Every structure is written in C-alpha cells, then in structure tokens.
C-alpha cells in the first residue's frame, strides 16, 4: 500500500517552507489569480517558482489552488496563467470551474484535482470527473468514514480528505451568506465567515433563543483518532485546512500528524492522548471529528459565546544560530521577557526547553523584554538550534 500523503496549507513562502520542513509531503498554495482565500493567496509566479524549487529539492510537491467559481470578469488570462504554472513545474492544480478544468486539460499537461467546492459525495460523480481527466478528488466534508470507504472501493480517482482545520458548515461552494450579509463573494475568495456570527432565533414575533445564542458554526476538525481508518480506506491524501493560519499552527499540526502517521506505519503508536495534547497547543478553537462519524450532534457544534480564543504562547522563530558564540537569532512574533522559559518546537528532535537569561537587539542594546513584532533579538543558548525552529513560552 502506498503511504498516505500529508497535505498542508501555506499562505506564504515562509509557511510553505515550515510546512514542508515539519513533515508535510505536499503543500497547497494560492496564486494571486483564480484562487479562493484572497488574503492568503499571495503567491506571485516568482514565489510559486521558488516554492516549487524548495519543495522539489526535498522530493515534495506543490499544488496550486485555482478554485474560484469565476464570474465573467475573472477569467481573462487563464490559459496564459496555466501555461506558466506548467512551465514552473507545479505538481497539480486544484479546480472547481468546469471551464478552468477543461482549459487546463486541453492546453497544458497539468495534473488537475477537483476542489471540495464541488461537494463530491458519491462515486458516480467522482468517476464522471475521472473520465473527464481529473486524477484526484477532494471529497466534501460531509462524507462519513463509512461513506469514504464505500466511495474509495468504487473510485477510479484518488481521494483527498480533510482531516484538520476549519469547517464550512454549509455544503462548500453552495453558500452565499457572505455575499448577502457582507457583500463579499464566498466563491471568489471573499468569505466573511458570517456563519460564525451570533444570531437570535424567532418564530414569527416570538423569540425562541436566549438572546443571540443561536449559532450556525461548527467546531473545527481534528481527526487523529480516525487517521488509521482513513489510511486503511486507502485515501491518497490527508489534507489540513488553513492557509491563513500562523506558522506556529502549521508547524505543530503538521508535525503532530506527521509523527502519528509515521508511528502508525511503524506500528509504534503512542497513546492517542500524547498526540492530542501536542496538537491542542496549536488550536485556538474547539475541535471535533466533524461528520466523519456520521450525522452531526451537538458535540460538533459551537454554542459558546466566542468561537475563538487567542493563542499567544508562540513567541518567535529561529533565524540562525552562531555556534562560536552560542547565540540564537530570533524573530519576535509575540511578547516575551527575560526569565521566561521557552520550549523549542523542531522537526528534528524531541521538545527541549531553555531559559531566556539575557537578550540584545540588532543595535547590540540589552533588552529586558522583546515587545516588537518581527524585531530581531539575540539570545544566549547552549543548544544549537536551526532556522525554522519555533519558540513557545511555557512559563
């Protein structure tokens, strides 16, 4: 059996590199054109080229989302853009529009995957797309484990399944809440996440809810306990959602699933709580197994007043290490100070900790606190760390 692919999101080049270094087999990214997630689709062709070069050096893959449901005005320059992606050597594109799919298949040799925006939930529809030339289909997030197994047994194309991250509570591609409520087109990258707002429920003129405690939104997806069954179901790719998430989130989520998958194949799984505790450090929303176990229950829904809570423990990313002087160069991402104990998150080794005993800024001035985002600080550290190691404050 071919080893399952771990597919991670990347909103920029730094996240792309972190995702791949922390264990993703492939990343999906959005170009500046034809992609959903407009704010996370910042990759120019030059950046895509750099990302592909980086990935291919590691024997890994890059998929480009060209998954908008386009209006007439959105389609200019499509063929030229696709040919440039082909020339760069991207490994596949992820599409939703039949016109974009047909154009890619007729004018390039690009491998084409079908986006979850098409909400494919059965083998007949999936095989239809395979016959059109699609090699992989991202299933709708409404598919249960039992259905995924049935679909796979009849499928001619590879299956890609979401395993972690935010959930569209509507069928993907079918929601215009954001269009109506915020004049932002969800199917062209403008989703305002109106499903996460608070609502009151009325029956005619009678209020049924307690104020605005009626919620549409679901908890985020977290499927560590279901990964073995997904692997056994012969799913080709396990996909993490979240191109707009932080590098800290990506590093922790990717590395946890990486370890789980590798441990599973080696038949050396730790107790599930070990992985769950690790991944929980990255989450800023409540999680559930989504609809993988079947029909939604109240355990899958968000009924709390806030659906997000900030995660401020991630304080910096290692940029370099000076072995001679045992000095760590860190780019600050959140406030930390002398006396804090920092935990190192690294793709290379078990968790290590060290105390910040002193630090200096780029002017060689002594600091007591690192308070400025993206500020470079130098910290004495006896452990040799590496670029893209991440630092979390644990005390």
């Amino acid at each position, binding site marked *: 059996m071919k080893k399952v692919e771990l597919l991670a999101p990347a909103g920029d080049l730094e996240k792309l590199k972190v995702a791949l270094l922390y264990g993703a087999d492939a990343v999906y990214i959005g170009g500046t054109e034809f*992609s959903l*997630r*407009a*704010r996370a689709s910042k990759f120019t062709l030059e950046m895509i080229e750099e990302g592909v070069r980086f990935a291919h050096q590691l024997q890994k893959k890059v998929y480009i*989302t060209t998954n908008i*449901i*386009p*209006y007439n005005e959105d389609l200019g320059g499509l063929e030229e853009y696709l040919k440039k992606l082909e020339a760069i050597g991207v490994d596949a594109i992820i599409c*939703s*529009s*039949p*016109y974009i799919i047909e154009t890619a298949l007729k004018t390039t040799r690009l491998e084409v995957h079908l986006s*979850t*925006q098409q*909400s494919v*939930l*059965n*083998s*007949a*529809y999936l095989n*239809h797309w395979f016959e059109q030339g699609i090699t992989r289909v991202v299933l*709708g997030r*409404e*598919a249960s484990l039992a*259905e995924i197994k*049935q679909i796979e047994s009849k499928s001619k194309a590879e299956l890609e399944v979401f395993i972690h991250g935010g959930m569209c*509570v*509507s069928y*993907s*591609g*079918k*929601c*215009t809440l954001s*269009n*109506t409520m915020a*004049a*932002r*087109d969800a199917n062209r*990258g*403008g*989703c305002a996440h109106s499903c996460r707002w*608070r*609502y*009151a*429920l*009325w029956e*005619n003129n009678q209020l*049924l*809810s307690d104020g605005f405690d009626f*919620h*549409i939104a*679901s908890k985020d997806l977290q499927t560590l306990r279901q990964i073995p069954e997904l692997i056994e179901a012969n799913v080709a790719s396990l996909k993490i*959602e979240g191109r707009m998430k932080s590098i800290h989130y990506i590093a922790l989520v990717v590395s946890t699933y990486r370890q789980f998958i590798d441990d599973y194949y080696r038949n050396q799984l730790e107790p599930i709580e070990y992985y769950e505790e690790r991944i929980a450090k990255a989450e800023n929303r409540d999680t559930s197994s989504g*609809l993988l176990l079947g029909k*939604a*229950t*109240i355990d*899958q*829904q968000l*009924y709390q007043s806030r659906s997000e809570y900030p995660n401020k423990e991630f304080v910096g990313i290692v940029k370099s290490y000076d072995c001679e002087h045992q000095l760590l160069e860190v780019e600050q991402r959140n406030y930390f100070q002398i006396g804090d104990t920092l935990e190192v998150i690294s793709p290379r080794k078990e968790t290590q900790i060290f105390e910040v005993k002193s630090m200096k800024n780029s002017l060689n001035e002594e600091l007591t606190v690192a308070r400025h985002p993206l500020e470079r600080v130098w910290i004495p550290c006896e452990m040799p760390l590496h670029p893209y190691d991440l630092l979390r404050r644990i005390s």
Partner: protein
Amino acid sequence: MYLSETAVISMQVITHLYDPKEIQHFKELGVHGVLLPVSSFSTAVQKSFQVMELSSILDILREQEMHSYLLLNTVIYEHDLSLLEETLRQLKEYSFDGIVCFDYTVAIVAKKYNLIHKIIYQPGTQNTNLFDPHYFYEQGIKGITVSREIPFEDIMAIILHAPDFEISLQGHGYLEMFYSARELLTLYQEYKHQPISLKQQTSLSIEEEIRPGLHYPIYEDEHGTHIFRPKALQSFQELIVLRPYLNQFFVSRLFLSDEEHTHALEAILGRTPYQSFLDQYPHYDSGFYYKKTSQLKGGSE
C-alpha cells in the same frame, strides 16, 4: 405597467405544485407549468410526491397542456445512488418536460436511462459565467439555471453567449443562501433541552446580532438546514428585458402565503400591474442584480 405589454413571450412561468387540485387554478392564471418535488430527493419544499403519485398528476398536466418539471434538489450521497437509479428508472416510463437538479450526480445517473436531455442543472450558485455553460451543453443536458448571486449584466452576458440550450432563472420568491447537511434547529433544541421539533416550519427566522431587525428565514427538513435572503426577490423590471431570452422563470413558493403566491403569479403573467403587487408586498428587493460583491478574504480550501 402590465408585463404582458412587453416583448414576445417565449418564456415559461413555472411554480411549485402543492396539490393536484391547484392545477386548474394555475391553468386559469396562465401558469405554463409546475415543479413537482420528488420524494426522497427534494428539500426545502412544503410538499413532495412519491413516484407512483406522479403518474396521474402528469396525466392531468398533459390534458391541461401544461409543462411538467420534476425537482430533485438534494445533495446525493453514496448511499443515495441505488434509490436514485431506481427512481430515474421508474421516471423514464413517464412523460414530462424536465428534471431540475441541484447535484450534477442526477445528470450522470440520468444518462444511464437516456434522460440526460431532460436535465436542467440548477446548483443555486456556480453557474456564474458564460464559459461553464458550454461544458454542460457538451454533456447533452437540456439547460442550466443561472446562479442567484450574480449581477443582471452577467446574467445577460450568459444568455447572449449561451450555447444552443435552455437558460432559466429563479426570479421570484425567497432565495436560499445557505444549505447545510446539519440539522441546525434540531441540534439547537437539543442543546437547549427543548423537546419541540422545529422541522418543516415556515415561521422561523434568525436575526443577526449586529443588525437587529434583519430576519433571515430558516427552514429544516430531513435533508438539512436552509437559510434564505431576508427579502424576497422580484424581477419585474428585469423580465421586460429577459422574457424573450429565458426558457423557464421559476417562482419559489416557500414562505409565501397562497394569496401572495397567486398575486405574484398574476403580476408576473401580466394580469395585474406589478407596481400594485409591490405596493401591497413591500418585502421584496432586486437581490444581486445591481449589487456587486467583492473578493476580500476567506474561502474554504
């Protein structure tokens, strides 16, 4: 102004049938045809029909020289495929004008039973540009319904550049903006320990916290939960331009009283001045015809 004073009429006005007894009433109004929701495969409707019931209804419609469209608007899961095949196999024996589907799987299965030429693909969203229809035309379907969230100028562009198949519009009534597999009302009642079922009730709405007073109709059935625009869509002015080009104009009936529904049909069919209708029913607007949306953030993949 009467809409009957405008343009050449080639367009069929189609609305939901709740009861076969309504056929005569619709005929007298001048309605050209009806939408017949098929049990097990229709959602967000007040009434659906078993396949066996359809035979006699289709006979009556044929006698009345009215058009008949079967509605299968659920999302098709793997476990639905065998029943869908059986349903289409049975429907193949009947005489009707079209099958309106939300999930393209219906078209794929219909192909097996030589019914693909009857398919009108109506995904709500997604038929948003003038290029995608050519793909569906090549598949051999009867036509598409343009998406409900696109501007009027884009609808015109799709119509004017469409291949030689039928183009339709969901042009009147409360239009859906959200469809979830989750039973959100049932789950909320369970969370609140309320035993009363809110399924299939048309009197429910949700109100935004930051825009009090704006109510969105919400409806749940066995296939999930639907949320609708706060105002119903009317297209009277637009019909003056669109009428010669559209093949079907669908009038949605959910949340409308029988009286309002009849008044709407009369105005659409040009039997009464549409301004009188709008004066009587102020909860209408022009949807996205003149409201541009932007691309700022978000998405789901």
